[in-house]
């Protein structure tokens, strides 16, 4: 599946109990804030800036995410353990979903 073969960057933290993947934009302030939040909380995560991928790849990633989660893709879009998701950086939502 395309989502498994993308060229993600990895950030290592002391917490590896969740598989966290962030779909972001390189230009987005709240994407940066979300990733800083994860880093500050010690989570390892992977991310990809979709605006730096070819248009066809980006469109297909967005289509797959929407099909999987029945949610329009806005940024940041986080997938947790391949089964839950967070859209946008609303700190209370992230706290709850990450069990903090």
């Amino acid at each position, binding site marked *: 599946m395309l989502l498994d073969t993308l060229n993600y960057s990895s950030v290592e933290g002391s917490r590896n109990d969740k598989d966290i993947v962030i779909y972001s*934009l*390189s*230009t*987005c*302030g*709240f*994407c*940066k*804030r979300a990733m800083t939040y994860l880093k500050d909380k010690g989570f390892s995560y992977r991310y990809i800036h*979709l*605006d730096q991928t070819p*248009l066809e790849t*980006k469109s297909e990633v*967005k289509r797959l995410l929407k099909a999987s989660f029945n949610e*329009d*893709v*806005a*940024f940041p879009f986080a997938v947790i353990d391949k089964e839950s998701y967070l859209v*946008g*950086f*609303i*700190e209370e939502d992230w706290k709850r979903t990450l069990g903090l």
Partner: protein
Amino acid sequence: MPEKTIADTAKFASMVAAKQGWIVNPDSDFTTSIEEGLTSNWNSMGYYLCPCRDSDGTREADKDLICPCKYSWQDIDEFGHCYCALYLSTSFASSGRAPGGIKDRRYAK
């Protein structure tokens, strides 16, 4: 089209804010990152696409997302800041609160 600098973009944001009666987010680190994103979008696409939104590939498709985006007025009225938090209402700014993420009104159901 000549390239924009971050200073050009900061001036643009200040002019928009002044015209609309808004405040540019006083969190300078955050605002600089937003202005960098806007500048990058101008220089790659030729228009100020909101840096927190993804391009649909053409200016026509993105027209509701060009800064200040079509949703800014409603978001500032309701939440005190626009989606990317570049612009704040005067009352939100004077409250001292930090903007948080909000739902993208473009996809409001």
